[in-house]
């Protein structure tokens, strides 16, 4: 989906944050809990990493941004748990208000309905016997598609032509895996794009390298 998460090339975000060499993994205690809860929520909800990424991408922009990285992890986890019927819609709001002292009735525990999903192996990489469709040096075009569901094809490369640099290990396709519609194992290609083919003739000169799944690409004659 074309959401707030797809940030490559957006403008007006201001200066980068100055690095702090002594930065710890978590700035605040709640971030630690949100991190661990989100990791465990994938198992509790019977889903997977791609579904988790999508659960964050489909947050409303304000929810995506307001509480930073681990804020969206927590809200993504809430989405997964609500979708699988582990918690009721509004359950976290109600419990929070109750803890704040409001007189609220919490929604009843729903009937779980986890997705019909079982991975064929751990992780996301899988062997694939089929020959890769493309080889290093091949010209390829990223498809100009706008799926309403999950995808890892950023908008800024869609419709642009690049060159295959190498073939990466095959992996489950996030677009179907996130929706429990099959692992759909595909070859993945490391593709180079010239910066001026992405951003126009005035752009800085550099190479943008990105890993794209087979079904995101089409051959260039």
């Amino acid at each position, binding site marked *: 989906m074309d959401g707030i998460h797809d940030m*490559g090339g957006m403008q007006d975000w201001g200066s980068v944050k100055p690095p702090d060499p002594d930065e710890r993994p978590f700035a605040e205690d709640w971030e630690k809990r949100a991190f661990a809860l989100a990791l465990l929520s994938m198992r509790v909800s019977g889903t997977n990493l791609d579904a988790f990424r999508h659960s964050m991408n489909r947050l409303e922009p304000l929810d995506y941004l307001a509480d930073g990285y681990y804020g969206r992890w927590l809200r993504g986890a809430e989405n997964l748990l609500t979708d699988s019927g582990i918690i009721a819609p509004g359950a976290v709001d109600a419990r929070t208000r109750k803890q704040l002292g409001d007189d609220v009735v919490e929604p009843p525990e729903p009937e779980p309905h986890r997705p019909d999903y079982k991975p064929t192996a751990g992780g996301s990489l899988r062997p694939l016997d089929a020959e890769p469709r493309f080889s290093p040096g091949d010209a390829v075009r990223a498809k100009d598609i706008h799926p309403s569901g999950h995808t890892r094809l950023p908008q800024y490369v869609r419709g642009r032509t690049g060159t295959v640099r190498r073939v990466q290990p095959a992996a489950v396709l996030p677009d179907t895996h996130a929706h429990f519609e099959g692992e759909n194992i595909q070859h993945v290609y490391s593709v180079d794009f010239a910066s001026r083919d992405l951003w126009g003739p005035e752009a800085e000169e550099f190479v943008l*390298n990105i890993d794209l799944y087979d079904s995101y690409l089409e051959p260039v004659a």
Partner: protein
Amino acid sequence: MSISERLPISMRTEALESILVERSLVDPKVMDAYIKMYESDVGPLNGAKVVAKAWVDPEFRERLLADGTAAVAELGFKGPQTEHLEVRENTGQVHNVVVCTLCSCYPWAVLGLPPSWYKDPAYRSRIVREPRAVLHEFGLELGADVEIRVADSVSECRYMILPQRPAGTEDLSEEELAALVTRDAMVGIATVAGPS
């Protein structure tokens, strides 16, 4: 819901934890173990050891650049978010820098959890569009003849940079070299400074 009406995220987090724990769906001890792992055991020191070893051991360096996943596993580094690791070398001619524009994918097993600047929208949006300007903001000036290569790590392949070994470090031990290597250099927004 406007910002002013929002419930504090720390309270929401506590609320979700209490719901899941009271139904025994989540064990707080398991949560503690996950947190401890990334607070104490897995961090950029892992990557620094990899870089220092590559600087002193040419055969390891070759294996690292050919198959990063296998080479870092020799040092015991593997795990979530590092199923496939590719290590790219920065030289006087080529400067690599890594981002994930779609979330903040990062090679946890060698670098730990990502720092704030890496997760920030300004970095995610701009490094794929104006890397030289962004690197300048980080204080890194590259010669006009240096080729910049930006890796947007949106698949399950993860990237770590092998920075250049600074001059004047010929007499340092592997441990002393590892102490010089920074997280920022292993993502590609900085170079490694020599001993001060």
